[in-house]
């Protein structure tokens, strides 16, 4: 049997900066030589060498990706942010064209890159079911045949003829997912949509997806940072790193390689990374990142911390041009890419920073983090104005320890953080 999806040497080249939404004036100026096209916009990460495109300001979002999938398979696509997962889905769902290579799809494709695409707030739930279904490529008659099932699944009941702008966000998401889950494509492409909705509904969605794949024999592509869901749902996984397909196989093996890859950065030095050469540092015309260190209470860099001990995250940066109103933001993510929290030094920053080296440190108290792996992501921006350095993960660390969260029992504990809170236990009579 021919595979239902065949991807052959698929590549996608993106143009950066000036080629996007330009104005007529800029184009005329560059045509008449009054002004060179704008340099790479501020705040973009330097492009790794192997992804630089053939022309200036281009980069390979996807490079020579080939694989094939048999009908009825559920394939998880994993990789870091910016690795090219979404580009792959966008090409397969025909939102954008590949630069070279091709994909052969032997079945109808429905892509679900977002829940509720095309929902119109003024239209009723009923009208939106038909509109959304049609946008996703279904015929009116097919939607009508599924209508009652969709309404049942969404649990919106009597509100079906109310404009969706009056729906609670939960109802909205439920209805939107219900439409998508009841479509009958041969190939279903799903991108992170399960990140929405309450836990109970998420479970129901996962169940529905499993049913779609196993009982109805659909082929499902599932992009996620949620390794648990990938493990539970998928029989196959593919790993995309730096625009290339680096591994395919059973989800367990692929996930291990993915996690090993994203943790390898610590190798620079335990709990520290430094850019001695300014040319290599993440930078924009105004500011460059020079170093990042994770410090234990004795001031030594480390990548393993006790749950009840504080962690200090120290960012060293260099202001290259006088900077006004900038701030650094620390984003602490779990290994799965879920944001634990974001914190900024905005109130502690000087309004004006002349060129020179600076250091900003964030002190995370003991008894706040959970026992798990974390990724440290840093970004710099001028709020309300523009991004200088976009968020990027630079370091990872592990929080361990015998017990935290007021428990001595060393069980794995759920939650992105695990604050030590005060409890009061008292007898209140019989």
């Amino acid at each position: 049997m021919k595979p239902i999806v065949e991807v052959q040497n698929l590549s996608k080249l993106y143009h950066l900066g000036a080629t996007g939404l330009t104005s007529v004036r800029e184009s005329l100026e560059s045509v008449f030589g009054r002004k060179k096209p704008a340099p790479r916009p501020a705040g973009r990460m330097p492009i790794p060498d192997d992804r630089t495109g053939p022309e200036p300001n281009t980069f390979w979002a996807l490079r020579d990706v080939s694989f094939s999938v048999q009908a009825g398979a559920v394939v998880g696509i994993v990789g870091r942010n910016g690795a090219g997962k979404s580009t792959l889905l966008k090409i397969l769902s025909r939102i954008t064209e590949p630069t070279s290579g091709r994909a052969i799809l032997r079945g109808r494709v429905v892509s679900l890159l977002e829940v509720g695409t095309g929902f119109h707030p003024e239209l009723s739930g009923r009208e939106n079911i038909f509109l959304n279904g049609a946008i996703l490529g279904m015929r009116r008659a097919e939607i009508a045949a599924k209508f009652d099932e969709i309404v049942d699944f969404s649990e919106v009941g009597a509100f079906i003829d109310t404009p969706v702008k009056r729906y609670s966000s939960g109802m909205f998401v439920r209805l939107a997912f219900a439409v998508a889950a009841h479509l009958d494509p041969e190939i279903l492409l799903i991108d992170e949509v399960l990140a929405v909705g309450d836990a109970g509904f998420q479970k129901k969605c996962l169940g529905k997806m499993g049913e779609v794949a196993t009982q109805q024999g659909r082929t499902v592509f599932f992009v996620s940072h949620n390794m648990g869901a990938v493990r539970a749902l998928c029989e196959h996984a593919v790993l995309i790193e730096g625009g290339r397909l680096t591994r395919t196989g059973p989800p367990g093996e692929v996930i291990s390689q993915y996690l090993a890859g994203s943790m390898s950065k610590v190798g620079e030095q335990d709990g520290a990374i430094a850019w001695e050469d300014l040319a290599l540092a993440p930078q924009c015309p105004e500011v460059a990142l020079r170093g990042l260190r994770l410090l234990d209470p004795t001031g030594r860099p480390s990548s393993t911390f006790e749950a009840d001990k504080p962690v200090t995250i120290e960012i060293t940066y260099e202001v290259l041009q006088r900077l006004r109103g900038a701030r650094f933001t620390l984003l602490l993510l779990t290994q799965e890419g879920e944001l634990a929290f974001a914190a900024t030094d905005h109130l502690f920053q000087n309004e004006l920073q002349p060129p020179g080296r600076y250091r900003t440190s964030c002190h995370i108290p003991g008894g706040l983090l959970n026992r798990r792996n974390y990724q440290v992501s840093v970004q710099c921006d001028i709020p309300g104005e523009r991004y200088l350095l976009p968020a990027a993960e630079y370091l990872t660390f592990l929080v361990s320890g015998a017990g935290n969260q007021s428990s001595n029992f060393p069980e794995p504990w759920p939650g992105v953080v695990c604050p030590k809170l005060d409890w009061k236990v008292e007898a209140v009579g019989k």
Partner: protein
Amino acid sequence: MLLLADVKSAPGYELIVERSHGWLKVRWRELWDYRDLLLLLVQRDFISRYKQTLLGPLWFLLQPVLTTAVFAIVFGRFAGLPTDGIPGPLFYLCGLLAWNYFSQNITTGGATFVNNAHLFNKVYFPRILVPVSIVVANLVSFALQLVPFVLFAAFYFLSGKQGAAVLSWAVLLLPLPLLQIAALSLGVSLWMAASTAKYRDLVHLTAYLTQIWMFATPIIYPLSKVSAAWRWVVWANPMSVPVEAFRLCLLGRGTLAPPEVALSLGLTAALLISGIAVFQRVERTVVDSA
């Protein structure tokens, strides 16, 4: 449920996703498959538009009447522009019927990529359905705007005033110039949508363009009063002929020469075909730059 799915998975179904080449490749089969979406987009455009206004559909009736009143005072009374012997209100209303349909189409259709960037970034469907649905949806407001015209015409007809409406079989020919306006406005929309996708600041220009275009079209003055020196403007403007044809059909007055008609139809066809080509060129990768 399974039956429906089986119908779709016809053996041998194969879609190849690769970089497309060439300028004019219309996937007619695919457009036909998405015909239900076209109707639903029309429904969405119409419902959302009147639900968000205070007066609802009434607004569509009121708008040309108010504009006509302003024109009658400013251009008719103050400036004293002639109206081919047709009562002023009827003359302006007739021209506005044609013009409003055209300008509504190009204003919303021309912003197709700008207004739908989010949608286009998340799901695929033939993008051209959006401007086409706008042209179709605006037919409903066109039909609504016929109501005040018919009322005014009936009033003048019954009151038996000089130069009042002449009702003739020519009314039945009205769909022809209307069709031309639909085709022309679609062509212009596609051009505008393609250029505003790349150069967003052109959005501001389109508002001016529409305004200037109106004055270059015989809406507030009759074609017969255009002097020979300015005749080329009328020739170069493909909207002149359908507007004059509107008056010919509805009011029995107007001047049309076959060469003008032929040129106007030719320009319309050229704009439409080239519009489809540039639109397709842009739609392939437009989301990459958003």
